[in-house]
């Protein structure tokens, strides 16, 4: 195995363009790293070595023939195993779909393939992008590269682990209540939940139609911008897709934050039961952005309990509707934690669902109002560093309210990225949130913070073995 993590997407693209590395060499490095770290991390459900090698040879031939498709051509990536890739199984980490072979690419898979990227494998997830880490499934849960005794966060668990371990520069995740941002936070990567409707969900196993989003996990903010340039755009075959122009995400990436107005949701730390070291890290992030020239003011979000009532009612109701038949007829196919959490949706009433959707619009309006006075919000995404994997809450009702789901309720783009480390050496994380469809400003602030703070230069020891 290579001693170093795979280069970032931007670095790999530059090296390929300069002829310093070939797609075949990059792919072999990614495959070797994936195989070598699999016993420690269980990041992959399937490593697609033959397919990857064939695609790498094609990419190499095209590039050497002068037909380079773009900055991601010839670079490896991975898919959370709820994304379809034609000819491969999409299991959703579940016995329910263990024989399910995709006949077509998901819309996002097709975009990444068209950009010339090389699929290395399908990545672990919490079953059906819900539930939690479970040992009564066909595949084990992924482990955190910073400390393999600890939880990756989820549900895009393998995506967070693979990017943090330097196996992949890009892994796709999905986010219904935080499932991109939570593994990004616990694994110290960047994870962007785009605006609802910005990136197609077609060909991705659904959990909750009105909250589901798809998006990237990467090591750097620049890489997220590169990925979004390929992923974003209208898909008329996705009923939730929005027909909104896609900007050049890298155009303003290196602009500084002077004059940008950042609303720091400091009260939300208390409301969300954020612990002292995570709160201190966020305070320091706010102070650093102020030193970089941003106008930082404190703003207040509506009470977290309102967001949680919305998110949980909507998510549980819709996911139960999707899974009701199997829950009633073959419940043993699910892991216990998945089965029990999905069943809760069957105990809700239609009136509760409608009330949650009504409250959702009110809360969205209130958060929109904040964006009349600030350009970006800064909040917590996690209450503290990753817990020990075996001590993760596996009850039917999550004791801790996920902070990330606030922006699934409102649909705003939200990005998690590292903002320091706990006393135990595990990543802490900040969340930047923007106006609907203004991922570009979120990326701009995230990039400025990343460069000024320098946390991006620290990688897990596992990644440099």
């Amino acid at each position, binding site marked *: 195995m290579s001693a170093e993590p795979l280069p970032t997407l931007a670095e790999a693209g530059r090296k390929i363009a300069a002829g310093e590395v070939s797609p075949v060499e990059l792919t072999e490095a990614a495959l070797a790293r994936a195989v070598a770290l699999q016993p420690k991390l269980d990041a992959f459900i399937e490593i697609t070595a033959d397919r990857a090698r064939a695609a790498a040879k094609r990419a190499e031939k095209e590039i050497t023939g002068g037909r380079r498709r773009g900055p991601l051509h010839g670079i490896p990536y991975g898919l959370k195993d709820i994304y379809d890739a034609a000819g491969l199984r999409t299991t959703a980490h579940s016995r329910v779909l263990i024989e399910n072979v995709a006949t077509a690419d998901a819309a996002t898979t097709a975009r990444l393939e068209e950009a010339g990227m090389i699929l290395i494998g399908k990545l672990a997830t919490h079953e059906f992008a819900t539930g939690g880490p479970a040992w009564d499934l066909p595949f084990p849960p992924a482990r955190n590269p910073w400390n393999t005794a600890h939880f990756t966060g989820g549900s895009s668990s393998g995506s967070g682990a693979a990017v943090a371990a330097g196996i992949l520069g890009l892994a796709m995740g999905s986010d219904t209540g935080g499932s991109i941002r939570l593994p990004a936070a616990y694994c110290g990567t960047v994870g962007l939940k785009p*605006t*609802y*409707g910005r990136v197609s969900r077609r060909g991705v196993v659904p959990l909750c139609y*009105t909250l589901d989003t798809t998006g990237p996990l990467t090591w750097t903010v620049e890489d997220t911008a590169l990925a979004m340039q390929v992923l974003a755009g209208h898909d008329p075959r996705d*009923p*939730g897709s*929005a*027909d*909104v*122009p896609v900007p050049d995400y890298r155009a303003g990436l290196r602009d500084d934050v002077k004059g940008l107005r950042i609303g720091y949701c400091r009260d939300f730390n208390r409301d969300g039961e954020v612990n002292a070291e995570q709160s201190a890290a966020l305070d320091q992030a706010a102070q650093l952005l102020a030193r970089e020239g941003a106008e930082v003011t404190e703003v207040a979000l509506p009470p977290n*309990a*309102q967001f*949680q*009532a919305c998110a*949980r*009612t909507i998510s*549980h109701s819709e996911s*139960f509707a999707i899974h*009701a038949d199997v*829950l*009633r007829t073959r*419940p043993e196919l699910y892991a*216990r934690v998945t089965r*029990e959490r999905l*069943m*809760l949706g*069957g*105990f*809700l009433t239609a009136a*509760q669902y*409608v*009330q*949650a*959707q*009504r*409250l*959702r*619009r*009110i809360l*969205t309006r209130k958060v929109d109002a904040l964006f009349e006075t600030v350009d970006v919000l800064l909040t917590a995404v996690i209450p503290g560093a990753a817990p020990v994997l075996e001590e993760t809450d596996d*009850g*039917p*009702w999550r004791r801790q*309210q996920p902070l990330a789901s606030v922006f699934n309720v409102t*649909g705003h783009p939200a990005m998690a990225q590292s903002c320091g480390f706990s006393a135990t050496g595990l990543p802490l994380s900040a969340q930047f949130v923007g106006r*609907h*469809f203004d991922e570009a400003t979120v990326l701009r602030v995230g990039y400025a913070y990343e460069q000024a703070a320098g946390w991006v230069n620290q990688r897990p020891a596992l990644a440099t073995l």
Partner: protein
Amino acid sequence: MSDDADSEFAAAVARAGVTIPPERWVAMREAYVSMQTLLKVLDDPLAYEDEPASMPRFDLGVK
């Protein structure tokens, strides 16, 4: 837990059409109660004009 609450949970399980093994009944009933406690906020009165956001269309008006 009161008998009323237990009956309410049993009715909810029956309506959902799912089966809960006896050894998980108490844990699921507690989860149900926790969920309903969180959801009390949904009982707050709303104005007639507060319509649902069932299918978000955040793109409206952007163009």
